[in-house]
């Protein structure tokens, strides 16, 4: 067999490992804080609460991420079983169910970290911060954990008007005021809970760090447009945790790690080195959340020359500089630095005539079929893998629609793969591989179609 001499299919970035190690440190930090009697919050991935909590000295841990960590180590199953035994319906979000089981186990062992917990575990929460963003699970699930902890739950409300309304500047201003008020109420709640005052200077610092990390992630992703794609989706997923779920980790360390990664990717681009050790036959995008339990599946695809050059989840926002000098209120500065209008996002992302066309479509139809596709053309993707999750409605319900749009507008085909984020039993790797093989012909066909239409790739 020649296999032994062949390098592994994925060409992983060296700078990735250091960032991934930070994640372990983050969980350790949470446990230490709790041991020292410091407050710990269980939080969701969203743009607002984390920096505020950290500025108030609250360590943050992320059950969403922790569940994926359990799944990646093959440890999620017993927690999910337990959640079923506790009476949570089995179709609910895998992240949620794993954390329900984990919480139940915590109660079994007297509020401590269960001994079987991977990665050091998550300490008992002082409070839970749920989110009104992204999906229903993220605000229903923390409330349902009430059976295990008498920790208060704050659901961070977020403004989400219809897309047509989002074009109006009035609505934008309304949403900004909404966020300022909501976050101030949250701060008041925290001050009351913790018996201490918000450190606004600290917020400028923790919030500022986030912006810098985001900028670097954005720059790295820009580099990924080159041919061959220098960084594989798996590397992106591995470091995403350090960048986004970074708890109270030192922002400087994460920034430095990303700086190194930027340098490494730049070098690869210059030398024409790819994120896979095989010829890049197909440039791919992964739409939806990762199959944490079987990430190696992507390696098998890499073996066939599939290079995942971009992905839909956890993408950074385009960095921006805004003049905030006219705002005295630190919370207003915090909100305005991050929250942008639809108009602004469109201006940034599209050419002026395209912006007009999209706006007209939105006003006429209430949606535009061009939205959400830009990365497919920017990264000159040959095929898209759509990961339909058994337990996640939010990221799955719209995938068929996306599939149609990508094909209609960009002539790029998609391969639907059913599975789950956590539940390995929902995924049939052998069958998915068979489908993938057949899908190559489809991708070849659409390559020709695009050529005939004079599209750039």
């Amino acid at each position, binding site marked *: 067999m020649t296999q032994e001499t062949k390098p592994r299919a994925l060409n992983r970035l060296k700078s990735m490992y250091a960032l991934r190690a930070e994640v372990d440190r983050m969980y350790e930090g949470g446990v230490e804080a709790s041991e020292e009697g410091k407050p710990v919050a269980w939080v969701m991935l969203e743009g607002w609460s984390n920096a505020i909590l950290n500025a108030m000295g609250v360590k943050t841990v992320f059950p969403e991420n922790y569940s994926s960590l359990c799944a990646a180590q093959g440890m999620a199953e017993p927690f999910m079983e337990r959640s079923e035994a*506790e009476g949570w319906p089995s179709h609910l979000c895998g992240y949620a169910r794993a954390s329900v089981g984990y919480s139940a186990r915590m109660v079994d062992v007297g509020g401590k970290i269960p001994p079987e917990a991977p990665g050091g575990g998550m300490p008992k929460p002082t409070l839970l911060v749920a989110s009104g963003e992204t999906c229903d699970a993220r605000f229903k699930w923390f409330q349902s954990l009430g059976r295990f902890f008498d920790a208060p739950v704050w659901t961070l409300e977020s403004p989400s008007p219809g897309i047509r309304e989002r074009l109006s500047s009035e609505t934008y201003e309304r949403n900004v005021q909404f966020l300022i008020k909501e976050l101030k109420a949250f701060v008041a709640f925290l001050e009351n809970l913790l018996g201490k005052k918000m450190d606004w200077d600290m917020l400028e610092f923790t919030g500022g760090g986030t912006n810098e990390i985001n900028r670097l992630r954005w720059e790295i992703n820009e580099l990924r447009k080159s041919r061959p794609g220098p960084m594989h989706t798996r590397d992106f997923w591995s470091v995403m945790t350090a960048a986004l779920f970074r708890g109270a980790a030192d922002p400087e360390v994460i920034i430095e790690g990303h700086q190194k990664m930027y340098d490494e990717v730049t070098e690869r681009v210059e030398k024409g080195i790819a994120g896979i050790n095989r010829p890049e036959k197909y440039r791919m995008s992964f739409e939806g959340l990762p199959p944490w339990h079987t990430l190696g599946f992507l390696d098998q695809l890499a073996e066939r020359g599939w290079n995942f050059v971009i992905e839909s989840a956890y993408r950074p926002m385009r960095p921006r500089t805004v003049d905030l000098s006219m705002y005295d209120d630190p919370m207003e500065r915090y909100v305005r630095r991050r929250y942008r209008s639809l108009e602004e996002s469109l201006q940034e992302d599209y050419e002026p005539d395209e912006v007009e066309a999209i706006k007209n479509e939105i006003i006429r139809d209430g949606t535009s079929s061009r939205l959400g596709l830009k990365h497919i053309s920017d990264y000159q993707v040959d095929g898209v893998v759509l990961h339909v999750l058994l337990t996640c409605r939010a990221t799955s319900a719209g995938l068929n629609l996306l599939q149609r749009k990508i094909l209609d507008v960009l002539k790029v085909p998609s391969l639907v793969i059913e599975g789950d984020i956590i539940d390995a*039993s929902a995924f049939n790797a052998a069958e998915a591989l068979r489908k993938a093989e057949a899908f190559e012909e489809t991708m070849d066909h659409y390559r020709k179609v695009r050529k005939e239409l004079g599209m750039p790739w």
Partner: protein
Amino acid sequence: MVRIYFAGIDLGSTMTKVVILDEDEQVCAYVVNHTGAEHRRLANKVMEEALIQAGLCIEDMSFIMATGYGRINVPFADKQITELTCHARGIASFFPNVKLAIDIGGQDVKGLKIRNGKLLDFVMSDKCAAGTGRFLEVTAETLGLKLEDLGRISLGSTQKISVSSTCTVFAQQEVVNHLSNDVPLEDVVAGLHDAIASRVARMVRRLKVEPDVVFTGGVAKNIGVVKALAESLGCPILVPEEPLLSGAIGAAIIGKELTFKALANGETIQTGERRLEEATFFK
């Protein structure tokens, strides 16, 4: 003194079971037969067989209770009660300390929480075949084995495989893969038993696992699954001598209790016509 008799008929999705008890709850006769599509209407035939075995006629039955999936289609029954209640009653009659009963039949899995012989709560699997007798049947077919041999074969396993999929179709594919990789048959079969056991254990845990745990239904005859289930639940498991009969026995006992209660109150018990007819429809 005239002896009186009670019949319980359990029309399950794959098996039909009839039991005739006397007033001391002694079994006078029992018959187990395939329900099978063509036999669905033949509840009367199974009943007849049991009567012949007992040397009795239908008029001798003081009460006939029907239970099981097809309970509404037994025209000569006096009353219908679900298999949930009947199983609980039947199992408690031979294991009075039962707290949790698990019944794995051809098409479904039931978990029963029982206290002092009374059903308190239950869980039931939905229509998916995974974890049921049907699943094992398909497996036996795939492997070219006899269903009843699976249990014995699995006992020889030294290193059972792990089957990650709980879906019947996926699991069969996994089995084929393992066999083509030269994994010993006994390890594959033991792995499948494990998969069933952990799925069932997962389901019944909501009822709290406390001894005595009793296992009934066709699959309880498979020693491999019994062993795997005991491991998954972490506690010993009791299996009645004839694990298929608990529903029918429970049905007959409940019929007896109703009759005696009515007699004690000086009421006459309402019974239907004693005509051994085919069921005319099956919904």
